[in-house]
């Protein structure tokens, strides 16, 4: 296993950063030429990308597998709705409030959550999200089981909403890029791969796990606000549904967890290949979706993106001398092999 060198001056991050900025500006500028249907679809896809990427940073790069995205979606959606309904504040402040609210919730929950390791963390986050959903259903001030309706005249829609979704998704992509290419990310990977060794080298495990949990939760909260703007009506069944958490995991894993572009591919594959393509198939859709998920993790356990990378690199590899370790994923932080 080769030792990764600490990046300095990060020339490696330059090109991806340029690419991200270009794509963001292009996507942003596309808004006027897109139809209403495409804008709406764009918002959906970008929101999924945001939560899948946030999950990816938390789980793929920092090793904290979460099943709690729904909790932060819900906190973001409800914060925005309650601010808009009960105060005269404009939507940008409500959006900001959602991010801050979800971040604070994460900070608060970190006290108990960060005591948990591995799969226990997953169970803990799942418990948080189910408890929050039950609480919202019983909380009459927040609309109880029927939920809340946002004031339509004071929220962004169409092209504006799409552009907000582009910016939020770009933030998520930017965070992933930063983590992928920074010394901070390298320390996170060390905590992920070998906690005791990382601690021995003077890396504060608690602070690094916290530093991954809080911003990813804030991003998920922003995604919740975007969904509230899009759906206009939010209810515990919808915005707090555990399906958000499952989708975040599915998309990131199918695309390739621990890689920057994996979630992008995963959103495409899961949303188009499964959700949309199968929506008039009934029982058969369950069969195909189940079988596909199993096939992907069985035969492409690192996800679709690394597979595509390898396919794209094959011509070069043939021209050059085969390098040892050439099958490591180019885009991922190297992972120490597990036992067995």
């Amino acid at each position, binding site marked *: 296993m080769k030792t990764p060198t600490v990046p300095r001056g990060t020339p490696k991050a330059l090109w991806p950063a340029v690419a991200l900025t270009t794509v963001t500006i292009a996507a942003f500028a596309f808004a006027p030429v897109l139809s209403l249907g495409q804008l709406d679809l764009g918002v959906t896809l970008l929101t999924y990308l945001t939560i899948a990427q946030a999950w990816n940073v938390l789980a793929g790069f920092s090793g904290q597998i979460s099943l709690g995205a729904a909790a932060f979606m819900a906190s973001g959606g409800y914060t925005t709705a309650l601010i808009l309904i009960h105060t005269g504040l404009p939507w940008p402040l409500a959006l900001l409030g959602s991010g801050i609210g979800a971040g604070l919730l994460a900070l608060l929950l970190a006290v108990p959550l960060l005591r948990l390791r591995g799969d226990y963390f997953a169970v803990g986050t799942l418990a948080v999200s189910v408890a929050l959903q039950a609480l919202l259903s019983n909380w009459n001030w927040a609309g109880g089981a029927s939920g809340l309706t946002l004031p339509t005249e004071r929220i962004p829609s169409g092209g504006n909403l799409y552009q907000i979704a582009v910016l939020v998704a770009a933030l998520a992509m930017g965070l992933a890029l930063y983590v992928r290419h920074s010394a901070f990310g390298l320390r996170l990977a060390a905590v992920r791969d070998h906690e005791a060794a990382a601690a021995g080298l003077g890396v504060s495990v608690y602070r690094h796990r916290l530093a991954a949990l809080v911003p990813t939760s804030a991003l998920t909260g922003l995604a919740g606000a975007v969904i509230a703007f899009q759906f206009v009506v939010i209810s515990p069944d919808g915005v707090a549904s555990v399906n958000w958490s499952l989708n975040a995991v599915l998309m990131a894993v199918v695309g390739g967890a621990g890689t920057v572009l994996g979630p992008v591919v995963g959103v495409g594959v899961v949303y188009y290949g499964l959700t949309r393509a199968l929506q*008039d198939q009934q029982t058969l859709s369950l069969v195909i979706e189940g079988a596909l998920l199993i096939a992907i993790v069985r035969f492409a356990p690192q996800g679709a993106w690394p597979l595509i990378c390898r396919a794209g690199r094959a011509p070069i590899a043939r021209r050059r001398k085969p390098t040892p370790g050439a099958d490591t994923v180019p885009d991922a932080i190297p992972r120490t092999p597990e036992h067995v």
Partner: protein
Amino acid sequence: MIRTTHRRAYALAGAALLAAAAGCAGNASSSSGSSSDDGPIVIGTSISLSGNTVLNQIRDGYLLAVEQANAKGGLEVGGKKRKVELKVLDNRSDTNTMIQQVRSLVLTDKAVGLLGSCCQQNIDMQGQADALKVPLVMGALPIELLPKGKGYTWDSFQSLADGAKDFFEVAAGAKTNKKTLIVTNNDAQGISTGKLWAGTGEKAGFAIAATKSVPTGTTDFSDVIKAGTSSGAQVLIASMTPPDCFAMWKQMKALAYKPKLAIGLQCAQTPGWGSLGKLGNGTLVQLNWSDTAGLPDTDLIVKKYGKKYTNLTDLGSVALGLHEATILMDAISAAGSTDAAALNKALAKSTTVSAQGPVKFVDNKSVSPTFIGQWEDGAIKQVWPAKGGSPLASLSGLG
């Protein structure tokens, strides 16, 4: 080496994204006009066909209505006959999927009208109809439960008040001590149902001994049953999902709580109630349709689906779907246009007479008839209105 692959990878992905975006943009100009002139008129529904709730019967009713309309050459819009295309999407009982599908039906497929399916999802769908300003015709949501929206949702279904009135008339004819126990799920529908039935019961001279609400998925009802036995309530009203009622009926029998009259709102409507065997005998159920009531299109429904669905509640769901879709298509014909505002105006003046009787919307709501049925050996018999129905049997399953 790593650096070059990186650059290649990112360039590749960037190019792919741009190409996808460009492809989408190219699509835009070609698809936007599809529903406006000569093509079929698109109506859409997001309905649960898998997961917790499966509503194949309502979907079959929609399809029957569309088939009928297209057999006559379609609907006349702007002086031309145009066929109707119904888009049915399965939302797997998931609220988020439903919302996303409704939005894509309207924004991408240019559906001019929507059909609502059932229950709580109807309430969430109303928010979308109002936000997208597209008419939505729904049933299976008792009219009292339709929230006050912005006027794009039209609900033609039975009224909780009628159901309660009929039930208490049936109950007054049976020999009970008039003490009543009400148990509902604690969602919006359950809680409103509980309040309304309690009010009607008190007016009809019944005493509400206790009202309990339980979360969906409850399996231990000992607390509710305790309230029944300690108050001696002989009339039981349950408004819950089927699995909850199954568990409660078994537990009631085991714990020897013996009401004399019990109605299972929502839950006893499932044909699966028959799998309770004798235990389910005598349980009352509220019906939206009966084959002996002389409603329009009864023969059509029985002829087409009488073999596939043998149960009154299933055929009632087919009737419901047929009824909803007919209301929407009649309004398109009446408006002579697919414009949302014109369609909404036509719906307000709807005079459709379909599988659930005549329609007349007041405040977006139109009442359809209510029947009370009773389970007996795996089948439901109509017991109210007494005319055309069978006599009320005892609640032998729990006795």
